[in-house]
């Protein structure tokens, strides 16, 4: 009886392992087919449309040795991180005060909701008139895209901290500061992180648009330069870096959430 149970468990585990292996094979095959199509397409199509995949790989290595690509990447990362940092600090503060003080909520909510629904990239021409062409308008457009999900999620977190959490704290004589730090802060971390995850994706869009339309710097600038000079092997290099950047930052936020707030998985993915 016991033996057969163990047997069954072992067989099940083996089946699961085989299944996982099969899944991996399917996924890798799928990616390989796409890359093969890219390679063959690149070999037969005119060069100004598409270069074969191996040339993009070669370009990646070549540009990686060249300092310019590294500088452009660092430039983009600096703008993005500055924008995200500003968004987190001000977004959390605004979300907190709006969630705690009703009148401030009434005052600010129409503007914040309105701007959240507005495609704020439309403000880029004004921003570059006001702030010049270099880093300032780029950071500003990243903030204008990234801050709203953070405000919204922090607000949702504060307003949904249940009475069942607040009342015991109040009845035990906790001060406003203690309530903020020991009850509200831990409860809203998962909300802030969910907002930050949305903010990363939107921030990268802001970064790229900023780099396209103000002074062409960073990865967006590199991309435009290669595309407009028909260097089809090179133009995929900045895109690959941007994808890795987005994926890496999103994963980082998820790891951070696990580490800071492993107790609760709450998401308010709404309205990007």
């Amino acid at each position, binding site marked *: 009886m016991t033996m057969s149970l163990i047997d069954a468990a072992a067989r099940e585990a083996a089946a699961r392992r085989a299944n996982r292996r099969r899944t991996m094979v399917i996924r890798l095959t799928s990616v390989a087919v796409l890359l093969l199509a890219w390679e063959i397409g690149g070999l037969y199509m005119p060069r100004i449309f598409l270069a074969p995949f191996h040339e993009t790989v070669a370009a990646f290595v070549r540009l990686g040795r060249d300092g310019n690509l590294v500088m452009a990447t660092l430039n983009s990362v600096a703008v993005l991180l500055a924008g995200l940092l500003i968004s987190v600090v001000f977004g959390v503060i605004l979300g907190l005060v709006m969630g705690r003080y009703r009148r401030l909520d009434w005052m600010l909510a129409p503007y914040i909701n309105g701007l959240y*629904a507005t495609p704020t990239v439309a403000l880029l021409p004004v921003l570059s008139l006001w702030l010049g062409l270099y880093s300032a308008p780029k950071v500003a457009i990243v903030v204008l895209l990234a801050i709203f999900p953070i405000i919204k999620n922090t607000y949702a977190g504060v307003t949904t901290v249940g009475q069942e959490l607040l009342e015991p704290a109040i009845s035990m004589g906790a001060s406003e500061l203690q309530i903020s730090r020991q009850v509200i802060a831990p409860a809203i971390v998962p909300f802030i992180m969910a907002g930050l995850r949305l903010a990363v994706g939107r921030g990268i869009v802001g970064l790229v648009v900023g780099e396209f339309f103000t002074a062409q710097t960073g990865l967006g600038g590199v991309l435009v330069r290669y595309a407009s000079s028909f260097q089809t092997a090179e133009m995929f290099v900045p895109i690959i870096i941007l994808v890795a950047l987005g994926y890496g930052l999103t994963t980082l936020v998820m790891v951070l959430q696990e580490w800071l707030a492993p107790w609760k998985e709450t998401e308010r993915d709404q309205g990007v």
Partner: protein
Amino acid sequence: MNVPADIAAQAELEGARRLHRERQIVIAVTLVVFLAAWETVGRLTNPLFFAPVSDVAREFINALLDPRARLLHGLIETLSVLVPGFVIAAVLGVAFGVLMGRSELAYNILDPHVTILYNTPRVALIPILLLWMGVDDLLKIVIVILAAIFPVLVNTMVGVRDVSAHFTEPARSMQASERQLLWKVILPATFPFVIVGIKLALGRALTTVIVAEFFVSVSGLGGLLHTASSSYQMARMFTPVIILAAMGIALDAGLTYFERGVLRRYRS
């Protein structure tokens, strides 16, 4: 016994009403302060950089009354890219979402590509698509599809998986066919997820269409904006911004209203 309860209820109602009135007053005062500040700053700064709100309003009315109807043309140009792109994205997103939610094989084949494209800032693909398709409306429609499809797809997929886990067994035990299961059970129950995806997709589509209009060919509302800002006509520049903001807010509010109605129907 009844009387005090009535009085309490009335007091509560009175309190709610007072709160509502206070809220309206706060909103109105803030709006007045905001407009006054805009007007003052606009009058004090160099007109090359900023315009007072009165000028913006005048320019807005002029644009509406413009006999050449440039604003209307711009709006139509933008919508003629946005609407087909968005509809195609929604239909394809739901179709692929259902496919990936129901079939493990399809999921494994497509998921790596979806993950990569979802993490690609779609606006970064504009220069490449420009190379492949030229300055055509087709490019703009394609980029709108690419921007809008993934939130719909991923939300539909998550919804289908969630729903399948709960409702497949009961439906099967009542001898439902795969087709009945899909149309009568899974799709209706997935609908709230789809709407959330569509709401997310809307903002992305709007952003992308403007970037495309900046970048590709100066047309539509983005084009009007670009022309006005590059000739430093500050007051004129705000008109398309206002229209775009109104569009975003109205579409979002409409979808939220629709979502609430749908959710209410589900609950009952």
